[in-house]
């Protein structure tokens, strides 16, 4: 493992499997009456959130606390950041406070890379702009593995706004590393022009892909995109790319439906699909804590490796 987790591309196959195996062990902790381990006692984890994302912040906070780390929540709203303090000054402040790890959520792609150049501790990317969200991909892979076993050769279909999705980028990279076959399905306007160079297949036809899929992951589609002419209307989007009961009927019996949340019920996913037994949406939330515990343990649980990979 490297010192930081910024991109799913930072993870070798062995790294990724180590995280998932570690998460498998740690999952048992949440079944015990005492859900706490002493492992990161005395270590400080800062949750540095420049965007509102209560669910991700709480997930990281629970993960760090279950490992006995001290957690400092630094929300950009109402802090010196909103008064114009630069990311670098914020980084130096965290450094002075002795942060062993900084979990950063930022609206600008690449902000965690910049932060990693300014702090000594580990940087964990909790979502940067339209770039990546590697712990989401790890928890998704963890969820798939629990339902389906090994991901080698599994066919995963990711549907929706790939262009603006950090979840899609991290998932494509991690799933390719783990040997799954990924197909992206979206209107062409919501795919990067260079998607052909990604380690995955691309289709514009959801109905053709569904019967062959072991996993169908629906991405959130923001209604603002409609105003920028990425698609004409919600109704048309939903008709062509939404997952409703009729489409689910085309999936094979063991195939699962995933969504990173928050969902637009009735837009990209029908309510009855989201609440069906195929849906892993609630498991994904629980698995998020476990997976993030594994990441924090593997980054912080050992010797401080200094800047060896920087």
């Amino acid at each position, binding site marked *: 493992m490297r010192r930081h987790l910024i991109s799913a591309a930072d993870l070798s196959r062995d790294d990724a499997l180590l995280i998932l195996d570690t998460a498998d062990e740690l999952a048992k902790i949440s079944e015990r009456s005492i859900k706490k381990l002493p492992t990161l006692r005395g270590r400080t984890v800062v949750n540095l959130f420049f965007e509102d994302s209560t669910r991700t912040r709480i997930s990281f906070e629970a993960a760090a606390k279950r490992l006995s780390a001290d957690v400092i929540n630094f929300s950009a709203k109402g802090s010196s950041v909103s008064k114009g303090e*630069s*990311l*670098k000054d914020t980084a130096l402040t965290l450094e002075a406070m002795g942060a062993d790890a900084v979990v950063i959520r*930022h*609206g*600008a*792609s*690449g*902000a965690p*890379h*910049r932060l*990693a*150049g300014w702090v000594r501790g580990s940087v964990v990317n909790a979502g*940067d*702009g*339209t*770039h*990546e969200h590697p712990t989401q991909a790890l928890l998704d892979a963890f969820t798939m593995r629990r339902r389906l076993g090994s991901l080698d050769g599994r066919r995963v279909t990711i549907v929706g706004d790939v262009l603006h999705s*950090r979840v899609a*980028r991290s998932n494509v990279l991690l799933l390719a590393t783990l040997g799954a076959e990924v197909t992206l399905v979206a209107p062409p306007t919501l795919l*990067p*022009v*260079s*998607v052909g*160079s*990604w380690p995955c297949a691309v289709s514009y036809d959801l109905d053709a892909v569904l019967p062959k899929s072991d996993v169908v992951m629906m991405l959130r589609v923001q209604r603002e995109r409609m105003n920028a002419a990425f698609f004409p209307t919600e109704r048309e989007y939903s008709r062509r790319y939404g997952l409703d009961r009729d489409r689910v009927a085309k999936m094979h019996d063991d195939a699962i439906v995933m969504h990173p949340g928050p969902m637009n019920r009735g837009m990209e996913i029908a309510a009855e699909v989201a609440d069906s037994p195929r849906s892993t949406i609630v498991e994904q939330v629980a698995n998020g804590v476990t997976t993030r515990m594994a990441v924090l343990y593997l980054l912080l649980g050992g010797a401080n490796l200094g800047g060896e990979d920087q």
Partner: protein
Amino acid sequence: MSVKTSVTTVIKGARILGGEPADILIDGGVIAAVGPDLTGDETVEAAGLVALPGLVDLHTHLREPGREDAETVESGTRAAALGGFTAVHAMANTSPVADTAGVVEQVWRLGLAAGHCDVQPVGAVTEGLGGERLAELGAMADSAARVRVFSDDGKCVSDAVLMRRALEYVKAFDGVVAQHAQEPRLTAGAQMNEGAVSGRLGLTGWPAVAEEAVIARDCLLAAHVGSRLHVCHVSTAGSVEIIRWAKSKGWNVTAEVTPHHLLLTDDLVEDSPVGAYNPIYKVNPPLRTRADVEALRAALADGTIDVVATDHAPHPVEDKETEWAAAAMGMIGLETALAVVQEAMVETGLLDWAGVAERMSYAPARIGRLAGHGRPLEAGSPANITLYDPSVRAQVDPSSYASKSRNTPYEGRSLPGRVVATFLRGRATVLDGKLA
């Protein structure tokens, strides 16, 4: 203002445009003679050095007035002299914008006072670079600054009617509109070249077509109204094709390329020694692909692109030590321009030193209508001379730069060559690599 001296200077043994060694005798700010065994009151040893006509930059941001924290006319022209330049065109996107005779004259006077090189102000095409109403182009042309190049650089004159009018209007005083070609709707929020790297990095793409579409339109407009068009900082292979086509029609279109677009590519944003997403590589237009770089080099070699212009764009540290999207766009370039051109064009065999002189002195002076610059190194020409040692190679160390800003993308990179001396009308502005 330089005081004419009666002292004569002889430059001994310089290779004029890289040719055989010869002496250059300077008297009264003018080249008095070129030949063997000349003598003068003072001697500058130039054995092994290449003598070039003083370089002329068509595209410099001196930032004064308004952003004196980034650069001033004084510091920027020091950097220019150290880079071998004897004249620079100061872009209009200052604060206030250089859109009146008053502002262009202020910049021109600051240049005179500094005395390191001639400062030729560029006038804004539209009021406040707003893209809505023409600025008083004639007043700027008629001012003491004698403005001939007009540009909204930093912004595109995207309105087709306004661009047509500007192209037509400047014909009255032999002006030229230098267009920053960037279709604004196609580049809303754009961060870097749209391609494989932007897709992976999740940075909003800046498509080549946003530049090419405007260049195509402007070439057609220039042809239609019979005016001169200059295209700033061409960055894509497609733009090269369009300009080549326009020139083949005999239209009066010229174009420039920056040194950084001749050397650097967009993959540096993802993978470089200074880390991913380092805004030191954030520039407008963005760094493009290897194929674009190859096309730009070929176009500069075959004359499709007329000029190398630095687009020297100083920014203070705090505007670059940020997350990518928040960072300012631009790179400094005056002090590395000749080195980068040597690396990209001369070392590769694409240009000889005569070709460099054409593209960095003669052509920019012609396009900017600078009568006293871009003259061949022969008797009777103003003694604007750059002495350059192409045989050395060193690591770029920005701490030594005269520019107030340090936003060079070449820090730590090894580049060839060294400007040894610069003469502005016979007076040394740089000697032995230092300001004289």
